[in-house]
């Protein structure tokens, strides 16, 4: 039996992952003959790490997902710089921008998303791309362009205070640009956060040197000047970075008659209305709308690789609840599930802690014994534990303050020996209890050396020396007190 011809339209992260997993399941190419068609002129790279390129800690080479020889070694046909321009479902062929075409048994649409330019005067170049002085942040070219324009000291406007906008604003400010973050809603990241968290996040941004214009809508962009807001003020900007979200790239699917409203709808086998055509990643609507997150795309790639190679014919994709992470500068934010229930909610138990001055906020919503939502800002340890509880569906710890705050404060210096019970081990190495040491204090009346001779305490790792000194000093305290 000849292998199935699988063509993947798109060579982004989801497509790259799919190709890797197909070859992991079918290393010799006996089941699947794979061709990947990419619009960009370079092999797939890790989009999530673009912030590192922007910050200058990573080079474009560092974020490549595949090296030059990868495709050949793995028997994957890769076509670079030739977008798929047309789809003939009946003939089962795709047409490429260079005029060639490819036949398929299965087509996978992995066309990703494209940045959305809000309908603000002067943002667009009229052909759907950004105008002069405006940049989106989606691909490597965007990134290099922003690096070029956002020099230290340069005024930069960031339009849109979602996760990407806040991260970008903080990153550019850290690199020395004079950043203003413009956000039309009443508080930052309003899709993921409640008002209090949004307010504290804005304080953190300002503390990091980012000016904020929140609840302010942009009405016009003027190249070389900046962004005019609806209150009449102007945010000066040599560069305006638009981070207003992405839209699924569905043009190809739509032209081929595969309904594409807010993402190419697929079932739990990632099939579109045409069972020969599948979709995954940011272009696909698999249960929930695509959110530009990596984890669903990888889970979809794993399911699809199992199905296409026939190695896991029963694999099905079920959308998990996404976790939002924001990490830039000193800001560490995690949010998932029900984040807008308040402590007076009748539907859930909600506990919270807010310390705006120190940039800390935690809120956890519980349904009985299970965590159904949380926000943790400035409390990374609590965030890690909450996400695991959420992922595992494990019962909530009895220690609710600990749950909310994690290891919020540096650990206090260990308790002194005074507060220990007599049975407590003071010298672990030699199993010497506090009671034994006190007995030795009474019997030898001695100093540390005498205690060491009598009990061997302090002769192992030596860690108990301060405690033994303290107990030896008790001799004086207890003198005159009948035992």
């Amino acid at each position: 039996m000849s292998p199935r011809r699988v063509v993947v339209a798109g060579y982004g992260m989801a497509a790259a992952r799919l190709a890797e997993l197909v070859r992991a399941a079918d290393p010799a190419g006996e089941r699947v003959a794979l061709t990947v068609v990419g619009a960009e002129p370079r092999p797939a790279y890790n989009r999530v790490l673009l912030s590192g390129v922007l910050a200058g800690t990573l080079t474009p080479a560092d974020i490549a997902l595949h090296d030059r020889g990868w495709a050949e070694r793995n028997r994957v046909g890769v076509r670079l710089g030739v977008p798929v321009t047309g789809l003939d479902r009946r003939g089962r062929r795709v047409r490429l921008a260079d005029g060639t075409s490819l036949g398929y048994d299965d087509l996978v649409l992995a066309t990703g998303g494209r940045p959305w330019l809000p309908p603000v005067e002067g943002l667009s170049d009229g052909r759907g791309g950004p105008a002069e002085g405006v940049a989106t942040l989606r691909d490597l070219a965007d990134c290099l362009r922003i690096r070029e324009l956002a020099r230290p000291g340069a005024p930069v406007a960031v339009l849109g205070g979602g996760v990407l906008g806040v991260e970008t604003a903080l990153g550019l400010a850290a690199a020395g640009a004079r950043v203003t973050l413009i956000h039309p809603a009443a508080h930052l990241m309003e899709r993921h956060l409640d008002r209090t968290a949004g307010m504290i996040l804005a304080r953190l941004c300002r503390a990091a040197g980012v000016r904020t214009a929140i609840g302010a809508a942009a009405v016009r962009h003027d190249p070389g000047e900046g962004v005019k807001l609806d209150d009449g003020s102007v945010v000066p900007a040599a560069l305006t970075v638009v981070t207003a979200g992405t839209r699924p790239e569905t043009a190809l699917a739509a032209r081929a008659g595969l309904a594409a409203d807010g993402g190419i709808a697929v079932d739990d086998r990632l099939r579109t209305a045409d069972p020969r055509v599948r979709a995954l990643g940011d272009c696909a609507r698999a249960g929930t709308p695509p959110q530009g997150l990596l984890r669903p795309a990888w889970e979809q790639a794993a399911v699809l690789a199992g199905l296409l190679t026939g190695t896991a014919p029963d694999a099905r994709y079920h959308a998990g609840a996404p976790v939002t992470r924001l990490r830039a500068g000193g800001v560490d934010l995690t949010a998932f599930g029900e984040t807008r229930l308040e402590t007076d909610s009748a539907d859930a138990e909600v506990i919270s802690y807010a310390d705006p001055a120190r940039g800390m906020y935690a809120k956890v919503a519980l349904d009985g014994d299970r965590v159904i939502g949380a926000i943790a800002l400035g409390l990374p340890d609590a965030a890690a534990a909450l996400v695991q509880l959420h992922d595992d569906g494990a019962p909530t710890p009895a220690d609710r303050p600990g749950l909310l705050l994690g290891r919020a404060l540096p650990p206090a210096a260990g308790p002194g020996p005074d507060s220990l019970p007599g049975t407590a081990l003071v010298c672990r190495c030699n199993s010497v209890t506090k009671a034994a040491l006190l007995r030795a204090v009474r019997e030898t009346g001695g100093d540390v050396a005498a205690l060491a001779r009598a009990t061997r305490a302090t002769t192992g790792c030596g860690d108990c020396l301060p405690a033994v000194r303290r107990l030896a000093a008790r001799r004086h305290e207890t003198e005159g007190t009948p035992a």
Partner: protein
Amino acid sequence: MTMDGPRVSAGELCQKGWTAGALLGAPDRLREPLVRDRRGGPLRPASWDEALDLVAARLRRVLAGHGPGGVAVFGGGGLTNEKAYLLGKFARVALGTPNIDYNGRFCMSSAAAAAQRAFGLDRGLPFPLADLDEADAIMLVGANVAETMPPLVRRLRRARDRGGLVVADPRRTATAGLASLHLAPRPGTDLALALGMLHAAVAGGLVRRDDLERRTEGFAAAWRIAARWRPEEAERVTGVAAADQRAAVGLLAGARRAYLLTGRGAEQHATGSDTVSAWINLALALGLPGREGSGYGSLTGQGNGQGGREHGQKADQLPGYRRLDDPAARRHVAAVWGVAPEDLPAPGPSAYELLDSLGTETGPRALLVFGSNPAVSAPRAGRVSRRLAALDLLVVADIVPSETALMADVVLPVTQWAEEEGTLTNLEGRVLLRRRAVAPPPGARGDLSVLRGLAVRLGRPAAEFPDDPEEVFAELARASAGGLADYSGIGYDRLRAGEEIHWPCPGPGHPGTPRAFLDRFAHPDGRARFVPVDHRGPAERPGGDFPLIATTGRVLAHYQSGAQTRRVPELAAAEPGARVEVHPDTARRAGLADGDRARVVSRRGTAEAVVRCTPGIRRDTVFLPFHFPGAERANLVTNPALDPVSRMPEFKACAVRLEPA
């Protein structure tokens, strides 16, 4: 700790050290050979001649009926270098069997395999332990030194004082309690933690790119995997906060002198080799190995854990850390042994595979055990005990009637540490001569003499199996010449004169090698290798009827299977029986309170223990010490899934449930 003077323990001992003398006079010390006249019958005293004649006769019968493969040998990491060497020679020359392995497979094999891959050489610490005194930052991964080797804690002091001690352990152990930063990964996810930290190092611009260029190969491929493991992704798998991963990397990268050390917690997994490789990758990225005052090392577990794996009691190895499947190595060792290279057997099965096959249709019918107690220490111990019982002949040489000895057909009483001379190679690769301090009990013989007695009875010339340790060491040194662990320049004379010699020491005038890798790594091109490894997770995941993860380990008062330490009154009193450490929330959910008796149940068996509630353990994890016999054997529940490279079993993570006993 072994008694090796000021360089390692600064003259300090832990309780196990200063009570070890009690073992010399243990009330049930074996003082005469014991034989069993029939299966199920009692062990009765016998003379040495009777016992050795009996063993030899029955070995000959098995050899005649089943060939050399019918006989197997199981050694130990506590045996001296001389014993380990002669045991390997005995198996391959006197028995001609490929079936020899040892309990070090359960201890150091993953670290050994990973170090070989990365550096071309496995020496636990490629630097003197005392170098740690000067460290600004130290990260310990799965190593609870405050309980397993307390004197080492002194060496962490400077790093602690500078806020640079990082400990990764699912439990807040005594060691974790000393740390400036304690990371508590879910058991079985250390590899993901290492990937997250490597990612943080690269993304944070903390990697020494010029060192990588100059001294290593393969960074790009390792990074391409780590690139997918942003700390936030690793956090989701490990439970370790991304911020803590970055902080830990920052401490190591920012220190002038920094060390990354792994212990069994990282290594005893079915992914142990890859896990250690991931930590070595991180160390290489930070430029630690091969830099004076910094480095990567593995903390050896047994007294002679290092030497025990160098001299040929491992299934795939010949003396000098040579590979049994390397034709040049076979020629060299065969010449020293005076046999034909083609007469040396091929590599044999690894420890658990060997034990698992005993008494089966195709497996060995006879087993000789030296310095090990596999009925307690092997994974899935219930199955292993049944395999031991299915043998035609089980011979155990030990100092006390261990659980395995009590199953034997013939028990041979041998001498122990202070009663005999011999060398050990400590965790820093330094060869120590241990002198005889007291006379052994009259009925006990040295293991060398036992091997000689058996070899002669099996028709080998006596000169092939000397029983004088110095003579054996001289032969070992010749056999090791030119190998990775080259001892050829080391002799008892130099050791008696007080020289401190780290291998390799390739000639009489050579000073030894305290710090390996400063100029070059041991691969032919002198470069270290990044190994591209990815997280796979434990072989068995919690869920359903087995919602918790059990991890096993040591407690302060005991050592290994406890056969020795349980016989020391002070130690037995400190820790009389098995406990299961559990978070109070988890105990409450199982209907248990502190002090209750509980059962820890896995798909393979049930271990009993007393509940000890501690808030310092993850709620999804229980901890069982592995020192106790009978129904309290932690290894009744452990998973024998093996690492594909090192053949290390998965001691450190298996799915269990907790219930009242």
